[in-house]
C-alpha cells in the first residue's frame, strides 16, 4: 500500500495561536485513521488544512504524490478529498436533495449518486424535498456525509460526526461508516469519543497542543496510554 495522503511538518495558525505544530503522518489507501485529542488540540484545524479550508503557515500536504499545499479547496475536491465539516454546515435553505446535488460540482464520477446516497441512508428518502434547516441533528449529519460522498472521494475526512447527537443516532451514523470502511474507503476521522474512535480505526493518532503525542493501532495501545496522551498527564506530572 502506498501513501494516499502525506502530511509533512505542517504548521497552522489562528492569528498568533499556533494550532498545529510540525505535524507529520501518512495515510495509506484503504486505511482508516482516527485523530483523537482534547478540545483545542488542533484536530479540526489539521483536518481543515488537509481539505484546503485553512491555509497552513508551513509544511506540505501531498495527495497521491502531488503537492497540494497551495491548492484551493474546490480543486482538492476534484482530486478526491472530501470533508464533512464540524457542525454539519449544510446549506440550510436548500433541500436535502439539492444539498446532495450541489456536490456534483466536482464532476467526479463514481458509485455515489443521489440514489445511492438515499439507499445508504434510508432515513433521508422521505425527507429529500425538505429544507435542510428543518431536519433533526442525525438527519443533518447523514445528509452532510451523503453530500461529501457525492463527490466520490478517494479520501473522506470526517470532523466530529457524533457531536451533539443522541447516542442512538450516533450508533446509526457509525453503522453507515462501518459499511463505508468495508468498501475500502480511506478515512480520516476526528472523534472525541475514544471508544468509538478505537472501534472503527485501523490506527489512532493522539494530538495534544498541536502535536502528535501518540500513534499506534488500537490493539497495541492501552486505554491508559491513550488517556495519558489525551490529557497530557505525563507532562503535568513532570512539571
Amino acid at each position, binding site marked *: 500500500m502506498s501513501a494516499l495522503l502525506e502530511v509533512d511538518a505542517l504548521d497552522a495558525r489562528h492569528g498568533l495561536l499556533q494550532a498545529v505544530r510540525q505535524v507529520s503522518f501518512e495515510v495509506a489507501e484503504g486505511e482508516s485513521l482516527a485523530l483523537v485529542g482534547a478540545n483545542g488540540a488542533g484536530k479540526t484545524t489539521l483536518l481543515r488544512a488537509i481539505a484546503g479550508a485553512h491555509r497552513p503557515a508551513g509544511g506540505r500536504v501531498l495527495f497521491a504524490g502531488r503537492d497540494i499545499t497551495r491548492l484551493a479547496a*474546490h480543486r482538492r475536491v476534484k482530486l478526491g478529498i472530501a*470533508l464533512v465539516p464540524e457542525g454539519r454546515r449544510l*446549506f440550510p435553505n436548500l433541500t436535502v436533495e439539492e444539498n446532495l446535488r*450541489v456536490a456534483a460540482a*466536482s464532476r*467526479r464520477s463514481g458509485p455515489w449518486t443521489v440514489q445511492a446516497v438515499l439507499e445508504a441512508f434510508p432515513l433521508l428518502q422521505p425527507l429529500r424535498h425538505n429544507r435542510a434547516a428543518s431536519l433533526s441533528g442525525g438527519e443533518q449529519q447523514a445528509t452532510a456525509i451523503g453530500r461529501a460522498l*457525492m*463527490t466520490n472521494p478517494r479520501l473522506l475526512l470526517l470532523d466530529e460526526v457524533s457531536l451533539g447527537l443522541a447516542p442512538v443516532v450516533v450508533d446509526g451514523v457509525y453503522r453507515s461508516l462501518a459499511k463505508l470502511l468495508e468498501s475500502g474507503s480511506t478515512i480520516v476521522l476526528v472523534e472525541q469519543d475514544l471508544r468509538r474512535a478505537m472501534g472503527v480505526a485501523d490506527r489512532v493518532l493522539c494530538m495534544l497542543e498541536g502535536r502528535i503525542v501518540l500513534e499506534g493501532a488500537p490493539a497495541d495501545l492501552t486505554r491508559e496510554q491513550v488517556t495519558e496522551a489525551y490529557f497530557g498527564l505525563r507532562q503535568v506530572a513532570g512539571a
Partner: protein
Amino acid sequence: MIWVSVIVHGILLGGVYALLASGLALMFGVMRIINLAHGSLALIGAYMAYLVAEHFHFSTYLALVLVLPGALLVGYVLQRSMLERSLRAGQLIPLLTTFGLLIVIANLLQYFFSPNVHSLNMGAIGSASWQVSSTLTIAWFDVLTFGVAVVVLVGLELVLHYTQLGRELRATAEDADTAELVGINARAVYARATAIAVATAALAGVFYGMRSSFDPTTGADQLLYAFEAVVIGGIGSLWGTLWGGVALGVAQSIGAQIDPEYFALAGHVVFLAVLVVRATVQGRGLQLSLRGAG
C-alpha cells in the same frame, strides 16, 4: 371605466420596474451584494445600444445581439476585479465600491457622450397600440416590456432552482466556505451570476432608453423603485420581484390618478406599508415562539 385603465397601465409600468429589478433580485436578493451601480450599468447598456445602432445602422433590437454579450463580459470582469475583493472586506464595502463606480460611470458617460439627452429608436412597435375601449389604450411596447420582464424573471427563477449553476449559486450565497468544500469554485460561480445580472441590467437599460430619453445622470429614481420592487416581492424570490414591481406600478398609477403629485409618494407608501406589515408579522411570530418556549 377610467380605473381599469389606471390599473392596467400600473401593471405595465410594473413590468418596467421588474425588468430593471431582475438583476438586482439576483445580486441583492440572492447573492447579498448591494450594487448601487446597477442603474449606471443599465445606462451603459443604453449608450452601447445607441452606439451600435448608429454605427452599424442596426435596429435597437438587433443591437442587443452585441450589447448583451458585452454586458456579460463586463459583469464577469466587474465581479473578479472589484466586487470579489470588496466582499472579502465585509458586506458594507461593496456598497461603497459600487457607489464610487456609479460616480465614475456618470462622469465617464458625461465625458464621452456629453450631458445632452439621447434616445433609442423603438422601431415600428413603438407607435403601435391597441384601442381596447374609449378609455383604455394599450401600447404594444409596454406589453413587450412586461413580457420581457416576465421571461427574464421566470428564466432566472428556473435557472436558480433547476440548474447546477443555480444550486451552486444558492449554496455559495448561504455559505461560501462550505461551498468550496463540496467542490464549488465559489468565485467563478459569483462571477457568472454577476455577468447574468449585468446583462439583465443592460437589457433593462435598452428598454428604458427606447421608452424615454436618457442622459448620463438618468436612473437614480428608477433604481430606487427597482430596489423597492425587490423588497416588496420578498428578498430572494425572483418571481416575487415581478409582483413587487406590479404592486409598485399600480400604486403609483393610482396615486397619479388621484393627483399627479402623488405618483412617487403612493409607491413609497406601499413600500413602507409592506415593511411595517412584514416587521409586525415577524415580531408576532417571534413573540409566539418565545411564549411557546417559556
